[in-house]
C-alpha cells in the first residue's frame, strides 16, 4: 500500500505538469515554444555549502569529543521554478548532502556504551547523515483556480507560529536535529532543519481587505520513509535497544542512577519482578536492578498523518490566527515511553526470582495522536503612554489537552534519586498543558557602535517561552532523566544582529537562558565580499552550559563547538 502511494504521487504530478504545459504550448512549433518557455518561465537557483565543525569542549567519557572535527558537511541544493501559467506554478528542489563520518566518533561511541548483559554495539553508519536520494527535497505545484483560492500540492513545508530559533507551534513538519546543534539558528536555520512532507495545503481568502483567510492542510505522512532518530535523549547504553544510537547532538544520558555499579535507568519506570526487592530491607541483589528496553512503532514522529485548519484575521493593527492541529507531536523532548511489561533478562523467570538476574522493563513510545489548539498574533506598538516604543509584539499559544508525561516517585527506593511510582504503574500520566511564547522585536539605532553608518540599525529580539502543566503532579520528568519538570518552565531568548561596512560584515548572536540555571549562546559573524553577493563565509559558535548535564541546555554542555560555513549561491 505504502509503495503504491509512493508511485502514485510522481505519476499524478507528472500528468498534471504535462497537461498544464501542453495547454500552454499551442500555436507555434513545439521546439520554439519550449525554448521560449524555458527562457522566460523557468528560473534556476540554488547553493553549494560546506560546513566544518570543531568541538572545543573538554568532552566526557560518554561523548569523547574533545578537540576534534565533528562535522564536515557538504551540501548542494539545486532549485527550479517554473511559472507555467497565471494559475499554475511549479517549484522543485533536491538536496544532496555528503558528510563523512569520523573514526574517532565511531570508536568513541563503541567505547562509551556499557551493557548488561553484554551486547554488540555499532556506531552510526558511515552514510548516516548523507542525503543522496533523487527524490525531490521540495516539489510543489501551486494552483490558483480563483483569485481568492490557493492550493499547494506536493512535498512541502508548512510553518505556523511566530517564534524564532525555538519551535512551539511550528510542529507540522518534523525537524531533523541529527546534524544541527540545538537552539543554534545562526548555524542551520529552521528552513534548513525542517523535513518536508507530502501533502495538500489550501488558503482561501474570505475577505481580502481584512486578511480573513481560512487554511486547511493534510499531510498523509505515509509517503515518507522514517529516518532513524538519533537526536533523542534515549541512548542505546541506557535502553539496550540496538536500533537507537547516539547522534552528534544526542542529549547527555542519565548517569546518576546506579545500583550495584549498573545503570538503574529502568528503575525509574518499574520494579523488579522479584518480590523481595519490594521489601522493607534494602536489597543488595542484582535482581533488583531493572534494565530498560525501548521500542517504538513506526510511523514515528513526523511520519504519520497530520491535518489542521486555522482562520486568520486582522482587526486594526492586530493580526491573529486560531487553529487546530491533529497529528503526532514530533518534538524529541516530548517523547514519552509507557511501561508495557516487566520480564526477566534470562529466558525463564527463575534466575530473576532467585536473585541472580535483573529484570527488564519494556517501554514503548506513546504514539498517541496529539490535539493542539493553536493561536498566534502580532501587533506593532508605536507609542506606549506617549513614549516611542517602536516594537512589534508577537505571540503564539498551544493548548495540548491530556499531554502525556513520564512520572516517577521522588525520592526513590534503594537510595536512588527516583524509582517507579506505584500510583502510575505504566510510568505515565496525562496533563493538560499550555505553551506560549511572547516575542518583542525592534530596531534600534546605537550610533556609537556604528561609526561607519549611524543609521544602520541593530535588530533586537527578545522572547519568553513558558510551559505550564495544569493539575501538575510531583514527579513528572522527561523520559531520559530524573530531573523533575516543574509546573511552570521558562526559557528566555535574546537575539541581536546588525551589519557593518555596507553589510559586508554581519554579526549576529542568539542567546538562550533558562532561569533554572542553564544557558546557550550561538554567536556568528559572516562576511559577504563587497564585490560578490553570491559568497558568504560564516564563523559560528554553539555553546551550552548549566548547573548539571541532565536538563535544558545543560544536556549539551560538553558539546561546545565552532563551525566555519562557506556558501556559494547560484
Amino acid at each position, binding site marked *: 500500500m505504502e509503495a503504491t502511494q509512493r508511485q502514485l504521487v510522481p505519476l499524478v504530478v507528472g500528468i498534471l505538469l504535462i497537461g498544464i504545459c501542453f495547454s500552454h504550448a499551442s500555436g507555434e512549433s513545439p521546439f520554439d515554444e519550449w525554448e521560449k518557455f524555458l527562457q522566460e518561465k523557468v*528560473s534556476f*537557483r*540554488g*547553493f553549494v555549502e560546506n560546513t566544518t565543525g570543531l568541538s572545543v569542549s573538554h568532552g566526557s567519557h560518554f561523548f569523547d569529543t574533545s578537540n576534534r572535527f565533528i562535522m564536515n558537511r557538504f551540501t548542494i541544493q539545486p*532549485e527550479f*521554478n517554473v*511559472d507555467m501559467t497565471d494559475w499554475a*506554478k511549479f*517549484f522543485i528542489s533536491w538536496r544532496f548532502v555528503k558528510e563523512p563520518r569520523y573514526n574517532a566518533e565511531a570508536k568513541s561511541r563503541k567505547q562509551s556504551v556499557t551493557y548488561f548483559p553484554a551486547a554488540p554495539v555499532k556506531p552510526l553508519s558511515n552514510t548516516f547523515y548523507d542525503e543522496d536520494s533523487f527524490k525531490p527535497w521540495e516539489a510543489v505545484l*501551486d494552483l490558483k483556480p480563483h*483569485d*481568492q483560492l*490557493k492550493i*499547494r500540492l506536493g512535498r512541502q513545508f508548512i*510553518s505556523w507560529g511566530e517564534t*524564532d530559533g525555538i519551535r512551539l507551534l511550528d510542529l507540522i513538519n518534523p525537524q531533523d536535529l541529527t546534524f544541527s546543534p540545538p537552539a543554534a539558528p545562526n548555524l542551520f*536555520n*529552521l*528552513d*534548513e532543519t525542517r523535513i518536508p512532507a507530502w501533502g495538500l495545503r489550501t*488558503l482561501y*481568502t474570505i*475577505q*481580502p*481587505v481584512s*486578511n480573513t*483567510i481560512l*487554511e486547511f492542510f493534510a499531510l498523509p505522512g505515509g509517503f515518507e520513509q522514517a529516518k532513524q532518530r538519533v537526536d533523542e535523549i534515549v541512548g542505546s547504553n541506557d535502553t539496550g535497544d540496538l536500533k537507537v544510537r547516539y547522534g552528534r547532538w544526542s542529549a547527555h544520558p542519565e548517569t546518576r542512577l546506579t545500583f550495584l555499579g549498573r545503570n538503574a535507568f529502568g528503575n525509574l519506570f518499574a520494579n523488579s519482578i522479584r518480590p523481595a526487592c519490594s521489601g522493607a530491607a534494602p536489597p543488595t541483589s542484582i535482581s533488583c536492578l531493572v534494565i530498560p528496553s525501548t521500542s517504538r512503532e513506526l510511523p514515528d514522529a513526523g511520519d504519520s498523518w497530520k491535518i489542521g485548519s486555522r482562520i486568520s484575521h486582522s482587526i486594526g*493593527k492586530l*493580526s491573529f490566527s486560531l487553529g487546530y492541529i491533529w497529528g503526532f507531536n514530533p518534538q524529541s523532548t516530548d517523547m514519552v515511553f509507557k511501561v508495557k511489561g516487566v520480564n526477566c533478562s534470562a529466558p525463564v523467570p527463575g534466575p530473576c526470582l532467585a536473585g541472580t538476574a535483573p529484570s527488564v522493563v519494556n517501554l514503548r513510545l506513546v504514539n498517541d495522536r496529539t490535539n493542539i489548539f493553536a493561536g498566534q498574533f*502580532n*501587533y*506593532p506598538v*508605536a507609542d506606549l503612554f506617549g513614549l*516611542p516604543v*517602536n*516594537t*512589534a509584539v*508577537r505571540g503564539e499559544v498551544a493548548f495540548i489537552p491530556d499531554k502525556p508525561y513520564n512520572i516517577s516517585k521522588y525520592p526513590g527506593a534503594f537510595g536512588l534519586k527516583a524509582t517507579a511510582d506505584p500510583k502510575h504503574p505504566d510510568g505515565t500520566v496525562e496533563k493538560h498543558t499550555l505553551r506560549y511564547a511572547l516575542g518583542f*522585536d*525592534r*530596531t534600534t*539605532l546605537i550610533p556609537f557602535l556604528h561609526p561607519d*553608518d549611524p*543609521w*544602520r*540599525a541593530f535588530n533586537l529580539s527578545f522572547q519568553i517561552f513558558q510551559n505550564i502543566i495544569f493539575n501538575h503532579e510531583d514527579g513528572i520528568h522527561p523520559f531520559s532523566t530524573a530531573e523533575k519538570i516543574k509546573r511552570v518552565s521558562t526559557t528566555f531568548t535574546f537575539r541581536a544582529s546588525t*551589519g557593518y561596512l*555596507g*553589510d*559586508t560584515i554581519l554579526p549576529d548572536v542568539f542567546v538562550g537562558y533558562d532561569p533554572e540555571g542553564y544557558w546557550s549562546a550561538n554567536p556568528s559573524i559572516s562576511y559577504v*565580499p*563587497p*564585490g*560578490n*553577493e*553570491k559568497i*558568504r563565509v560564516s564563523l559560528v559558535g554553539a555553546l551550552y552550559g548549566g548547573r548539571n548535564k541532565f536538563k535544558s541546555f545543560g544536556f549539551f554542555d560538553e558539546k561546545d563547538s565552532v563551525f566555519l560555513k562557506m*556558501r556559494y*549561491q547560484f
Partner: protein
Amino acid sequence: MAFSLVLMCLALPVPKTLAADPDLKPGDTIGPNNWQRIQGMVGENFLNRIKAGHTIQIKPSKTYRALKEYADATEKYSGKVHLGSNGELLGHVAGQPFPKMDLSDPQIGQKLAWNFFWRWLGDDYKTGGAVKGGKIIRSAIEKDGAERRADLVSYFLFPRTRYILDPKPVIPGYEHIDYMQLRVDSYPRDAAGTTTLEIRYADPNRADDLYIYIPSIRRIRRATTTQRCQTLAPSEFNLDDINSFNGKITDFNYKFLGEKKILANLSQEHLPFHRKQGDYLPLDEKWEVVDTYVLEITPKDSNYCYPRKLLHLNKMTFDTHWTLIWDKRGEYWKEQFGMFTPVKLADGREVWSVADVVIVNVQNGRSTIVTATRSYNKGYPASMFGLSTLESVMRGGSIE
C-alpha cells in the same frame, strides 16, 4: 557648525536665480571647462564629477501629456479638495488635488506635497515590469567600486484612485487605503522569496502596516514602520527615500522655495544606462532642461534623520528629478536623481515611468543604482496584496 550652515546656505537653490544658463541648447556639451553653465541645475556631487572630467550633452526636452482620465478626474473632483488644520487632505477622490497653483498661497508647500503624492501613477503598476527580465536591478556600489547586485520586483495598487480599471474610482472596501505595495526579492538566492507587504492608510494618524515574509523561517513577521530612518543596507536608501519621498505627508512641514530650471532626463535611452563598472555616472545619456517646483521638506519630529530634504518636482508630472538631503550637522549628505522613460499603456498611449534612480551618499562614498521601469495598469486584484500571497511565495518564484 557655523561653517557648515554657511555651506548649506550656499547650496540652497535660490528661486529663479540659480539656473546658471537658461540658454542651454540641444547639442551643447558641458564638461570641466564650462561646468558653470549648469551650476545649480544638478546636484553638487554630480557637478563635482563634471568638474573632474565627466561630460554631458544637452538634448531637446521631452514633453508628456497628462492622461485624459487623470485630467478628467482632476477637473471633476479638485473643486472640493481642501486642506485640514493639520495639513491633511480633505475631500479628495481622485486626480490632482490642487491643479490651480497660486504660488503666493501660504499653503502652497503643503499643496505641492499632496500634488506629488497623488501624481499619476496608474491604477496599479509593477516596478521592474518594463525592464528586460521583468525585474528591478539594484546595484550597491562601495567607495572602492566593488559592486553587489540584487534583483527584486515590486507591485503597487492604488485602490481608491483608479482611472481606467474597474471598479473605479475605488475598489469597494478599500476606501481607507491609499496604496498597497508588495516587494519580492528574487536574487541572490538566499534573499530570494523575501517578500514585504506595505499598506499606507488614508488616516493621517495611522502608521503604515508592514509584513515581511522571511524564507529562512518561512513565516510572516510584523515590523514597525515608525522607525523610517534606518538604512536599507546594503543600499543607501531608507524607507522614506523610496520614490524620492515616501514619508507620510502629514508628518512633515513643507515650504515652497520657488521655481527652477534643472537638468533631467525624461527619455532615458538605455535600460539600465551605460556606465563604468563600479561607478554610478551615466555615460551616454543626454540631459534636458526641465521646469520644476522646489519643495523643502522638514520633519515635525526633531529626531528624524533628515532635517532638510529638497525635492525638485516636475511641473507637469509632479515626479521628482533631483532630491538633495542634509544631515543634522547641516552637512550635505545624500544626492538622488531619477531618470524617466516613455512606456506604453495597453491601449498604446504613451505615459512616463521612472527608469534608473541613483542615490549617492557623499559622506561615505557609497552609491546605489536602481533600474526600476514600471509597467502600468496590470489589473492586479486587491486580493493579491494580502497575507495569503506572502504565505505562498517560493524562492525565485513569481507571485503574479
